[in-house]
C-alpha cells in the first residue's frame, strides 16, 4: 500500500474526472472555489458541463436544484462552512424537501483547514446535514475511499452530503478497495476490549490508538463509520455486544455529529458507556493543521485515554463475571 499523504478534497477532483467520462448528464456547479475544491480539473476538461456561479453559494444551490429538476446529474461543492452554513435553507427547501439527487460536497471540513481560522473551519456540518430527512451524510477517511464514496453517491436516490478535508492524510485503504456504499461501515480491526467508531481524519488516529491499546492488552475494534446517516446500526450494535463499551472520534463538535448518533443508537438498543473524542463547544482558530489537531484533542492519545476510561466502565456480560 502506498503511504503517500493526500487530502480527501483531492479525491473530489479525481472522482469528477472519472464520473465525467461516463455520465453525459453530469454538471458540476461551483461558487468560485474550483481550485480549492479541486473541481478545476473537471472544469478544464469539460468546460461545457461546468458552471461557476460566482461567489454566491445560495444561488449555486438553487441552480443545482433547477438543474436536477431538469434531469441533470449535479455535483455542487464549496467549503463546508459556506455550503452548509450560508446555503442551509436552500439545501433544506430546494434539495432535501423534494429529495432531489444532488450531490453536495463540503470541502475544508474541520479545524485541520489550518491558518484560515474559525470562519473557514466547519465543525457543525455533519450535525446540520444529518438532521435533514433522507439525506445521506458521508465523511470518508482517506483519499481512496473518498473517491469511491463520491462516485457511489451517484447511485443514491436522494441528496447526499460528503464532507472532505484539506489536510493531507495517510491512506487507510488500498486504492483498489471499492466496498463503500451509503449506510455501510468498515470493520478495520477486530477486538473485544472496546469499540472505536470514527470518521474522517480520526479513523487513522483510531488505528494508531488501537496499536497503543493492544500493548496494554486491550484489543480495540475499530470501525470506519464513514456513513453518518444512514448509520450502520447493525455493525455498531454487534460490536458493542462484543466489547460492552464505545469511543466515538470525529473532527466535529461533540454536539450533533457521529458521537450523538452512535450514543442515541446504543442508548436505545444496547446501553453501554460511550465516550466522545471531538471538539468541545469551541470555535476554531488559526494555526497549523497539526497544531490545531493537537490543541483540540483530535489525536490517538486522546482516543487511548477515552478508551481506557470506557473499558473500565464497560458493560460486562453475565458469563464474564
Amino acid at each position, binding site marked *: 500500500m502506498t503511504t503517500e499523504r493526500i487530502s480527501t478534497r483531492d479525491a473530489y477532483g479525481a472522482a469528477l474526472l472519472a464520473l465525467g467520462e461516463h455520465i453525459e448528464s453530469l*454538471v458540476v456547479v461551483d461558487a468560485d472555489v474550483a481550485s480549492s475544491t479541486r473541481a478545476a480539473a473537471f472544469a478544464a476538461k469539460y468546460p*461545457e*458541463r461546468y*458552471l461557476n*456561479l*460566482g461567489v*454566491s453559494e*445560495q*444561488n449555486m*444551490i*438553487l*441552480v*443545482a*436544484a*433547477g*438543474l*436536477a*429538476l*431538469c*434531469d*441533470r446529474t449535479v455535483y455542487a461543492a464549496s467549503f463546508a462552512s459556506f455550503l452548509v452554513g450560508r446555503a442551509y*435553507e*436552500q439545501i433544506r*427547501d*430546494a434539495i432535501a*424537501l*423534494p*429529495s432531489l439527487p444532488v450531490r453536495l460536497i463540503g470541502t475544508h471540513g474541520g479545524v485541520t483547514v489550518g491558518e484560515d481560522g474559525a470562519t473557514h473551519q466547519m465543525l457543525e456540518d455533519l450535525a446540520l446535514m444529518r438532521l435533514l430527512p433522507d439525506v445521506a451524510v458521508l465523511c470518508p477517511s482517506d483519499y481512496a475511499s473518498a473517491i469511491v464514496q463520491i462516485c457511489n453517491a451517484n447511485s443514491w436516490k436522494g441528496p447526499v452530503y460528503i464532507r472532505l478535508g484539506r489536510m493531507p492524510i495517510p491512506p487507510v485503504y488500498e486504492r483498489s478497495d471499492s466496498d463503500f456504499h451509503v449506510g455501510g461501515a468498515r470493520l478495520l480491526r477486530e477486538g473485544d476490549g472496546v469499540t472505536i467508531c470514527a470518521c474522517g481524519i480520526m479513523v487513522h488516529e483510531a488505528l494508531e490508538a488501537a496499536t497503543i491499546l493492544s500493548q496494554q492488552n486491550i484489543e480495540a475494534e475499530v470501525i470506519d463509520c464513514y456513513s453518518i446517516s444512514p448509520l450502520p446500526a447493525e455493525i455498531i450494535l454487534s460490536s458493542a455486544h462484543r466489547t460492552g463499551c464505545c469511543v466515538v472520534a470525529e473532527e466535529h463538535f461533540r454536539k450533533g455529529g457521529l458521537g450523538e448518533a452512535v450514543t442515541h443508537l446504543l442508548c436505545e438498543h444496547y446501553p453501554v458507556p460511550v465516550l466522545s473524542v471531538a471538539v468541545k463547544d469551541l470555535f476554531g482558530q488559526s494555526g497549523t493543521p497539526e497544531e490545531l489537531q493537537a490543541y483540540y484533542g483530535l489525536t490517538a492519545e486522546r482516543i487511548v485515554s477515552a478508551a481506557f476510561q470506557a473499558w473500565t466502565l464497560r458493560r460486562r456480560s453475565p458469563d464474564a463475571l
Partner: protein
Amino acid sequence: MTEIPRIPETDLLRLEQRAINVRKDVVRMIGVARSGHLVSSLSIVDILTWLYWRVLRVSPEDESSSARDRFVLSKGHGCPALYATLADRGFFRREELWSYRRLGAMLQGHPVANRTPGIDASSGSLGMGLGIAVGMALAGRMSGSPYRVACLAGDGEMQEGAMWEAAMAAGHFRLSRILLVIDRNHVQMEGKTEDIMGLEPLDEKLRAFGWRVAHADGHSMQSLQQALAEIDSSDAPGAVIAKTIPGHGVSFLENGSFRGKDVLNRQRVEMALRELEVLEQETLRSHPSGEALS
C-alpha cells in the same frame, strides 16, 4: 422585438371568464381550508391564466416531457391561484382543491415538487424561485432543448439577496428563455413595499443586471402579451413588472378592510362569490361577443 399577436377578442373573453372562475375557486378553497393567503393569491390570477393558456407550452398529457416549458412560483404562498389554475388546465381533479392545507393532502400550504402534478419546483421560503429557474434554463440550454422557464415572483421578495444573485446569473449567462413576472402589488406582510424597504427603480435595477424589462397591467392579458413582445429577445432574460391590485376582483379585499390574517368566514365567502358573479356578468357585457357566450 418579436411580433407576438394580440389575443383575439373571443379568446380574451374566454380567458377572462376562466380567470374569474379561478378566482371563485381560490375563494372557495381558502374558505374551506379557513387558512391561506387570499389577497396575494387574487393578485396573480390573471397572470397565471395568461401564462397557462397563452404562453407556456405545457399540458397534462405531457406533464413530464423533458421539452416542456417550466414554471416556478417563487411567491409560493400564492399557490391557491396556481392550484386552481392547474386544476382548470386539467393537471388534476378539481376536487383536490377542497383538501388544500389538510393533513396528507396533495395540495400543500406551499408548493412541493414531486407531490403535485404540474408543480415543477418547491417554494415557500421567499427569494428562492429565480435561482431554481436559472438552473432550469441552464439545463435546457445544455441539453439543446430551449424551453421557456417562467418565474412568478412577489415584489416583496425582491428584497431577498438571493433574488439578485440569481438575477445577476441570468444576465451573465444571457438566459433569454427566462421570463420573470413580478407581481407588483406594492404590499408586503407589514405594509407598503416602498415604506418598508423601497424597491424602486425596480426596472432600472434589473436592466443594470442585464435584463430586458417591460411594464404591464397585471390584470390585462392583452397588456401582459404586449409586454412579452417588448422584452422577447435572443440574448437577454426578460422581466415583466406587472402592476396588480392585491385582492383584485373582490372589493372588501381590494380596499384593505380585510387583512391577510382575518379568517375568511362563510359570510365573507358568500360576499366574495356574489361579487365575482357580478364581475363575470359585467365582463360578458363589456365584450362585443360576450352576450352570445353567456
